Each structure stands twice: as C-alpha cells, then as structure tokens.
C-alpha cells in the first residue's frame, strides 16, 4: 500500500491518519462501509435507550392511578423517547443502509464526498450524546417531540432541558442535511456505466427522494428551533404573547418539516421492501416505473399536507378541508405501491426467510397504519381522535410496523453482506413472530383507547374510564416486544462471531451488491461493473431474460484493476464536529467556549479544504 505525496504546504504537511485497523482507523475513516457500520451500532444503542424509555412509560400506564413515574419524568420520557427513536434510532439506521449499500447498489467505490460522509456521522453521534447528556445536566426537555412554544420557553420551562433538546437536534440536523446532499449527488453522479436512472434499484430511488425531502424540510425545522432558541437564550420576543406573537407560526414551521419527516422515515423502508420482495419471490418488482413515479409523488405531495396536524388550532373550514383533501390524495400513490408489492408476490415462488417475513410484516402492518392515517385525515372526525391514543396507534403502526419491521428485514437480508456471517434463521423467525404478536398487542389496543377517549401524553388516568384493560394488554405487549428485540440482538451478536460464513450471494439475489464478496473488500468492486439491466445480477444468472441487450460478463470474472486509488482517512471531519459539539456546551454554560468551538470548526474546515487527499493505492488480489 503506497501513499501518494503531493507538494507540502503548511496544511498539507499536517499529520494524516495512517492506521488501517484499530481505534484510530475507525475514528478517521472515510470508507462508506465503515461509516455505515458505525451508524448501525450507534443507532442500535440509541434504539435501546428509546425502547427502555418506552417501557418505563408503559409500566406507568399499565394500570390506573399508578405512581411509579411522576408527571414530570413521564413528560421527559415521552419527549426523549420520540426524539431518540425518530432522530437517533430510525433515521440513522436507514442512513446506515444508505451508507453501506447505495455505493454497492449503483456500482461505485464510495459516496461522492467521503469526508463529508464521516462528518455526517460525527454530527449524528455527538448531537445524540449532547441531547442525552441532558439527563445528567438537570434533566431533558419535557415539551414533547414538537416542542411547541410558549410551553417550551423559559417562562414555563426554566431549566436547560429544552436548550439541550434544541441544540442537540440542530447538531444532528446538520449531519442529516449534509448526508442528504451527499446521497443525491452520489446517486445522480456516481453510477456505474450503464446504470441509467430507470435501472436504479428501488432502494436507491427511495434514498434519493428521501434525501430531497431532507434537503427541503430540514432547513425549516432549523428555523423553527432557532427561533425558540433565541427566545430562550437571548430574550427575543418571537413567541411572547404579550409582545403580540402568534404561536401558530411555530406550529406551521414545525409541521412543514414534520410531515415530510414521516416520509423520510418510511420511504427508505419502502425501498428495502421493494428490494426484498422480488428476491424471495424470484420475480422482478411489479410496475417498476410506476413505483418510481409514486415515490416521487408521495415525496412531493408530502410537502402540501402539513396542516393535517393542526385541524384543531382553528384555521377555519376552508383551510381544514383543503388540507384534509390533500392528505387523502396521498393514499393513492401509497396504495399503488401496496398493490405493486402484492403484484410482485403474485405468481412468484415465495420463500419465507426471516428477512422476507419481516418484509411481509411491513405490508400488513403498514396497511393498518396507513388506513388509520386516512381516518385521521377527515378533519371533522379528526377533532375527536386527534391527540388521543388513536394517533399514537396510527404512528407506531407506520413507524414500527412500517419502518422498523423493514429495517429489521434489512438486517437479516443485508447483514450477511455487512458482517460476512449469516444470521440464524430460526432465531430470526422466532424474533419475527414475537415482534409481530407483541407489536399488535401493544399498539392495536391504542386505537381502541383513542376511541374510548384516552388523550395522549397523560402520565396517569382515573379508574373507571374504561382504559384499564387495554392499557394492561398494551404493556404486556410492549414487554413481549422488548423480548423480541433482545432475541434479535442476541441473534445478531452471536451470529457475528459464530454464524456460518456468508457466501457472496446467499439469497439468489438480483442486484450488484451480491456480485462481490461478503464482507465487502475496501474497494467494493475489483472492476467497476458495466450494467445492462435493472436486475443486473439476475439477468447475468439467467441470460435468457436479457431482452436482446446482452448482459456483460460478470465483473468478478474479468481481470481486476491492478491498482485502485482510495481516499485515506482524515482527522478533519471529527475535528469540525467536535468544535461544534464542545461549542454547544459553551453556548449554554460559558460563551468563550462557544467562540472557541466555532473557531476550531472553522480551522478544521480550512484544514479540510487544504489538507490534500491522502489517497492510497489498493491492489485487489495483492497481499491486501
């Protein structure tokens, strides 16, 4: 392995990380696969934290008038639970798969901006740590995951909790935004020869649309958060009623972000399912181009429905109906996807692997969640179910039944590629059934509770309201879910050590990632593949399907390139992120530290731009 040296100016003479294994190699890595794995484990840790918070809430709600957890702690729990699950568990877990698999799926050696990619990860990790450090620094926010002012302002929330919440979200938000740019450019510009847009695997499409949603929606929540932060820290009057403010400005800003956000969560999940169903029914995805189009439509319409969260703020019947109708429209493209998935299954030869079962679980549960969503969109009856457990039921169905099931499917499906070992199928199936049963036990009763009139975000309820039975069932279900998560975790951890070594193509796959060894070598493809078909590998395996276009010989059979130049590690992404992280504490405790942090970040940026490329030459088939 050689290092390319360029002329040495001051910045270029800065030390470059050399380590290729061990701690420093991970800290300085810019390899999309390693970053993907970092995202993976970090988000699993945050998921467990969010899950424990959920279990605590469920324990408190198991029976009426319980006092296991007091009101203030309960409010903090649901705030942190939601924030953790959405921003620190589910989104980064999808990012983990973006990172690891997008370059593989489009036949590239890395993402467009490897250093930015590392930066995204550090912002996520440090933002998450910042947010959660509030547990030890006076307690986290208790203002709910949308943090409406004026409850979130100093007057009603005097501690630092809300500040930690806002700044933590801003920090992770920077990382998310940056990865949004990165993946759009990667998918548009880094495709292997022949990989036209209409040959992109569905997961790449949903990743791209998701990234667009990020690019256009995150700036809006950034503004919303900054405005309340200014009120809290600097005494501006933006949400001061007595200064003449209108609190609904924040409502709108938040939900202009908030609704696209829910599709940011579910679209990648839909992409994963669209990869898995064809493989295990041995058929191409049904209606590919319509799927692409409806993904874009969902993303687009998703920007025009935010006020369905605000039917009861008093916007008047005209606005309410406009948003109700716009919301309903979304059911059409989503339905198209649902039917196309079933069309994919229909006539296939369906193998019930663990991954497939989770993907099928997605279909069934997302269906329920989506249908309850449409029920919510009817503005007049929304006034009854709004902010009840019916909503809680709805969104857990779409976010767990939808997103989480699909992500666990991806763990079983892509895990062998990432870690080089097969997961245990039997444990996988046990995990599936316990999760499926536990999930429905936890969240279906919530739909009923909403109809019985139980509002959300209450730490306790009186006996005799008719809530007891359903809450008890729900709590038991949550415990079963916890058990299932532990089983899956056990499966993952033991398989990593003792699992059967994974072959390159364990599932009879269809796409490019299965043409290369598991786990994937540093350079991904020994030779950049030439793509002639949507299901490239499938067509290579079944040349009679090639519809005239002759599939090129498998890349692996060609002679590999003898020298591949890969980007080497860098300290700068971490340095810039650390500057912002430490500076953020300064903002809350001691302003000079804030300015110091900003200065460090700026210097890091300059170093980043000028340090040069630290390129390394890798020789496939060599001693490496």
């Amino acid at each position, binding site marked *: 392995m050689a290092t390319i040296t360029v002329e040495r100016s001051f910045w270029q003479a800065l030390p470059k990380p050399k380590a290729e294994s061990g701690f420093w190699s991970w800290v300085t890595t810019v390899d999309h696969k390693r970053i993907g794995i970092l995202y993976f484990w970090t988000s699993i840790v945050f998921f467990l934290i969010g899950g424990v918070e959920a279990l605590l809430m469920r324990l408190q709600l198991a029976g009426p008038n319980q006092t296991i957890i007091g009101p203030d702690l309960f409010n903090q729990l649901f705030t942190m639970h939601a924030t953790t699950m959405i921003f620190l568990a589910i989104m980064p877990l999808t990012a983990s798969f973006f990172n690891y698999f997008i370059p593989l799926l489009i036949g590239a050696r890395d993402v467009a901006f490897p250093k930015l990619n590392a930066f995204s990860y550090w912002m996520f990790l440090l933002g998450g740590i910042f947010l959660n450090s509030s547990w030890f620094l006076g307690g986290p926010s208790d203002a709910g995951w949308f943090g409406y002012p004026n409850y979130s302002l100093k007057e009603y929330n005097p501690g630092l909790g809300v500040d930690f919440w806002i700044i933590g979200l801003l920090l992770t938000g920077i990382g998310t935004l940056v990865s949004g740019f990165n993946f759009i450019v990667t998918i*548009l510009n880094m495709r292997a020869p022949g990989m036209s847009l209409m040959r992109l695997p569905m997961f790449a499409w949903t990743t791209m649309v998701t990234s667009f949603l990020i690019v256009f929606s995150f700036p809006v929540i950034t503004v919303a958060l900054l405005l309340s932060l200014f009120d809290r820290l600097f005494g501006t009057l933006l949400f001061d009623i007595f200064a003449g403010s209108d609190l609904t400005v924040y409502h709108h800003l938040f939900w202009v972000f908030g609704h696209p956000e829910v599709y940011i969560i579910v679209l990648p999940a839909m992409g994963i399912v669209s990869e898995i169903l064809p493989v295990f029914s041995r058929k191409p995805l049904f209606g590919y181009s319509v799927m692409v189009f409806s993904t874009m439509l969902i993303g687009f319409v998703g*920007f025009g429905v935010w006020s369905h969260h605000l039917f009861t703020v008093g*916007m008047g019947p005209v*606005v309410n109906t406009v948003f109700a109708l716009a919301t309903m429209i979304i059911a059409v493209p989503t339905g198209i996807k649902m039917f196309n998935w079933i069309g994919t299954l229909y006539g296939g030869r369906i193998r019930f692997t663990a991954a497939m079962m989770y993907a099928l679980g997605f279909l069934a549960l997302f269906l329920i969640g989506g249908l309850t969503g449409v029920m919510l969109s009817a503005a007049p009856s929304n006034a009854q179910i709004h902010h009840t457990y019916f909503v809680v039921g709805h969104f857990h169905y779409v976010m767990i039944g939808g997103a989480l099931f699909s992500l666990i499917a991806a763990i079983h499906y892509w895990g062998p590629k990432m870690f080089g070992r097969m997961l245990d199928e039997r444990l996988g199936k046990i995990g599936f059934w316990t999760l499926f049963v536990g999930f429905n036990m936890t969240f279906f009763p919530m739909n009923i509770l909403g109809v019985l009139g139980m509002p959300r975000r209450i730490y306790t309820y009186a006996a005799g309201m008719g809530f007891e039975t359903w809450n008890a069932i729900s709590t038991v279900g949550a415990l079963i879910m916890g058990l299932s998560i532990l089983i899956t975790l056990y499966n993952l951890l033991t398989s990593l050590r003792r699992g059967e070594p994974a072959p390159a193509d364990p599932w009879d796959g269809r796409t490019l990632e299965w043409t290369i060894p598991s786990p994937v070598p540093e350079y991904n493809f020994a030779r950049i593949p030439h793509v002639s078909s949507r299901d490239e590998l499938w067509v290579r395996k079944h040349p009679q399907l090639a519809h005239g276009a002759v599939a090129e010989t498998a890349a692996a059979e060609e002679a590999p390139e003898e020298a591949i130049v890969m980007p080497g590690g860098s300290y700068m992404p971490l340095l810039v992120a650390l500057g912002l992280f430490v500076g953020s504490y300064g903002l809350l405790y001691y302003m000079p530290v804030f300015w110091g942090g900003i200065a460090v970040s700026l210097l890091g940026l300059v170093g980043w731009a000028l340090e040069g490329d630290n390129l390394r030459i890798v020789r496939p088939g060599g001693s490496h």
Partner: protein
Amino acid sequence: MEKAHQVQPTTRDYLKVGFWLFVLTVLEVAAIYIEALRPALAAVLVGLSVLKFLLVAMFFMHLKYDSRIYTGFFAFGMILAVLIGLAVTVIIL
C-alpha cells in the same frame, strides 16, 4: 470542467449585467417616490426584484449556460419555498 462547446459569457457580458442591476435598483428606489405608481407599487417592486433575481441567477450563477439540472433544483426549491411561505402567511394572517 464545463463542456468546451458551451458559450461562455465574456467580461463585457458581465459588465452589462452589472449595469442593468444598477439600473434596476435605481428604478426600484425611484418607483417608491412616484406617486402615480402607488396603486400598483407592490407589484412593480416585486416585479423589478424578480428581474434582478433572474439576472443574477441566469448570468452570474451561469444557469443560462449550465446544465438544466441546476436550474431544476434551484427552481424547485424556490417554487416550493414561495408556495409554502405564501400558504403559511395566508393561513395565519
């Protein structure tokens, strides 16, 4: 590097654009003091600033000469931003 066959604006072109930006700014300020314009003033001002916006975007930012994709991204972002901004303003006010 941009494709060689693409027309590149010359220094003269840029100076011309700069000149028009100057003229438009003067017009904007002048418009405020012309009583006759009062009824349509808002429209005139918005119109003039849209022109300035377009000049900068098309020439200084090269959208006129560059890949359509850039224009697409920018236009999409701008249109979305304006639509949502208008909608929120109308709903609240």
